[in-house]
């Protein structure tokens, strides 16, 4: 029952945060935004600016009503039902949700697979590094992890692009698949996508590998510091394997928390990596919306990013609950 209470608390937290994010978004886009949205819309539509048209559009957008509560409530209602307006600049008149639809899946595949791989490998290496502290493996892993940590994701992406696409020609320079020139189906399509996704995937995986390695290693060292002394008194080498399991279990807990904190950064990395590889996901869309100052799309990408990180955190909390017996028995 402790798990339930714990998770309930986390869900409540999520709802509060979501609410805050929505309110923040609203005030940012409807209160602080510079320039007249009606004017921007008219200019983008290529129409001449007449006062009558402006008034009519103002009414359509609901801008002639007070900001709070009318416009605010309207915003909440529309967002909840996924009616997030139409793009004004990038794909005029196309609904924001339809633009999102094709992009979201591509980003999600990229993010989830690379993050999972990064976490699993980083943690595994971190355990090994913490265990065999001081060995050449540990030292070289430490150095390379530090370098990876210090390198911006897009720089890493450019370097990999340089080596594996430009020089070796093993992978294409960007994109999602060869469509529509090539119309593969089934396994061929899968291979084609994998071919295009390999480098951005590798970039994202390596970019955070170093950080997770360092986190797990330091976490494990903390734990070993506590228990190792007492347990070292116990019999021989074989116990080490059992110890390792206990040590790792305990070290994983703070690591999970710290890894959850890095989801925000991972999302940032996705944006820059998608730019480098022209990978048509939500990250690239945010960039395009930013350059065009297409506010409806910008608003949607921001909300998407916030919600994605919130859900990822919830998953991390679930993992924490699973790993920590204290939560379960509380």
């Amino acid at each position, binding site marked *: 029952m402790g798990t339930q209470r714990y998770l309930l608390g986390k869900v409540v937290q999520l709802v509060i945060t979501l609410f805050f994010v929505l309110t923040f978004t609203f005030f940012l886009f409807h209160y602080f935004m510079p320039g007249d949205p009606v004017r*921007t819309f008219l200019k983008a539509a290529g129409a001449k600016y007449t006062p009558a048209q402006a008034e009519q559009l103002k009414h359509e957008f609901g801008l002639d009503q007070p900001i709070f509560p009318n416009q605010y409530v309207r915003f909440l209602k529309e967002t909840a039902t996924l009616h997030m307006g139409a793009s004004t600049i990038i794909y005029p008149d196309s609904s924001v949700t339809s633009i999102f639809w094709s992009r979201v899946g591509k980003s999600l595949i990229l993010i989830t697979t690379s993050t999972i791989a990064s976490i699993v490998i980083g943690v595994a290496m971190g355990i090994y590094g913490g265990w065999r502290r001081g060995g050449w493996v540990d030292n070289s892993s430490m150095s390379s992890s530090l370098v990876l940590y210090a390198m911006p994701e897009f720089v890493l992406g450019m370097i990999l692009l340089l080596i594996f696409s430009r020089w*070796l020609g093993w992978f294409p*320079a960007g994109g999602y698949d*060869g*469509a*529509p020139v090539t119309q593969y189906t089934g396994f061929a399509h899968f291979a084609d996508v994998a*071919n295009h996704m390999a480098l951005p995937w590798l970039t994202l995986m390596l970019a955070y590998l170093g950080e997770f390695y360092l986190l797990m290693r330091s976490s494990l060292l903390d734990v070993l510091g506590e228990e190792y002394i007492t347990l070292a008194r116990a019999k021989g080498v074989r116990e080490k*394997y059992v110890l390792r399991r206990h040590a790792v279990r305990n070290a994983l807990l703070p690591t999970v928390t710290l890894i959850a904190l890095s989801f925000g950064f991972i999302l940032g990395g996705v944006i820059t990596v998608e730019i480098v590889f022209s990978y048509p996901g939500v990250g*690239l869309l945010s960039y395009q919306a930013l350059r065009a100052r297409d506010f409806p799309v910008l608003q949607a990408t921001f909300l998407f990013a916030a919600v994605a990180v919130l859900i990822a955190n919830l998953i991390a909390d679930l993992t924490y609950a699973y790993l920590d017996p204290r939560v379960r028995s509380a």
Partner: protein
Amino acid sequence: MGAGRRAVVVIAALGSFLAVSLAGTALAQSVGSSAGPSNSGPIDFVEGTIADLNTVNPWKALTTQEYEVIGMNFDMLENFDKANLSAAPGLATSWTQSPDALTWTFTIRGDAKWQDGQPVTADDIAYTYNTTLQCQLGNSLDYLVPDYTKSIEATSPTTLVWTMNTPNTAPVRPPWVYIVPKHIWDGKPCSDIKKDPFFDNGKMIGSGPFQMTEWVKGESWTMTANKDYWGGAPQIDRFIVKHYNNAEAMVTALKQGEIDYTGTPSIALFNQISQENGANGITAHLGPTSGFDQMSFNMCDPSAADAAPYCKRTGGTGNPILQDVTVRKAIEMAIDKQTLVDKVLQGTGSIGSTIVPWPQYHLDPPDAIQFSISGANALLDQAGYTDTDGDGIRNDPKSGQNLEFRFILRSDSDYGAQLGQYISGWLKQIGIKTINTVETTNKLTNDWYDNDYDMYIWGWYPDPDPDFILSTFTSHQCGSWSDTCYSNPEYDQMYKAQQTAQSQQQRVDIINQMQQKIYDDIPEIVLEYNRTTELYNSAKWAGLEDNQSPQPEGTLWSQYTPYSALTVHLRGNEAASTSSGGIPAIAWVGIIAVVGIVVAGVIGVSRRRSASDEDMA
């Protein structure tokens, strides 16, 4: 599971992912090498672009990319002539003007069909034009000259009559309005037509040589050949455009054979390939002037007697010192346009002078302003703008203020910021200080609507007919298309005169005078003309050079004339492979084998280890 086991699983997953990914490479390689005239797949001509397609609503089109698609999907009453962009037969095969010059009669061809099978008639054209006028649709409204048009009617399925109230050559400019099918749009209210996304609603039904059949927003769009096109069936099956986020990836794709053509390479990449002289089977084609970049001044002075109506209504914050033409002339004199062409455009352009770049109408001003820092300094000294407070910046003799001007550069321009940087440097040398800000197009648009600026840099890709670009300097375009809110009654008169000129020569003369007037009054400085830069795989494709437009030196794939789409074809010989490197199929079999062995080995080792684990429990 122990850490070791976990890691093994991941390595196995990684290995398989790698194998699959490399399989993709092998696949790509095999397709690339087998594509050719003998294969059974569709013949695709693939363009790469960094300019995304925003809309395919014919009335909303603004960018080259959009016109490219719409121009291939739809027809016009008259097409742009390949050689000089004047009127050529389109849906109309011929036309006559009545003796009193007020009525134009067009004969509409009988063999044109909509892409849904229905025949095209004069009714469709009349419907399109009248709807455009009534609903005030789009940027091309001016081509239908609402002030001079009395009526446009279809008197028979093959006859269109356009009646004017003043003699006018607008009907054969040609009017840049695309014809849409009446049987699909008739009865729809204006607001619906304005907002319709067209493709999303399955409305890309035109009469042109291609039809847009797929659009993956942000990634690519596909146009399929219309074999029943009245102008002849295209020799390719599909025209595909792939969108790239940066010119890098795009040019790499061109080199690797993934795409066949691009009209938007970066200047540096274009020059690099130019220097290769076709070594890799890629031709670099430098085309004619496509547009210009300008530095505009805020000419709105609400207190002036002949200020534009919008300027009077809205007011403005333009620095009054800039109202003095001497200051503007000194600024133009201080700009080394040749350096801008050499350094910023890297040679892909020419020095700017007047606002009409097209050869048929362009005027080379007889006494053009030459670059001279000392000359500019002398000019300002003579006019009394000396540095009275010793801070290195000249002062206005009347108000004592420093000559400090706000200078806005657009962030989403390719090289706008660069141009601005150079100009600031030169202006500093003549004692003028610029306060540079970088703004997005939207923010600049807002400042411009408010007349809240001093100078900024922007650009134009003028229409083939100079009427539009000339109109932007008329006083009633302030608040609409006017860059500067320049307002001069004499100029307004000249504009009307050229619209109603009786002969081409008369029109050319008036247009020359207008250009000279703008050049002398300097509401804006035309910095340079930029030229089109195109790259294409000439080893694989032929038929592009023959149809460049205009001629003799034209753009290979023009936004105005879709003819290249009709004549581009594969070269007879086997396509030279331009893909570089890549793992041959046999190699990836080997790689998978090695990976498989390693994975198997590791699993085997860990099995043994975990066995001993259990022993201890």
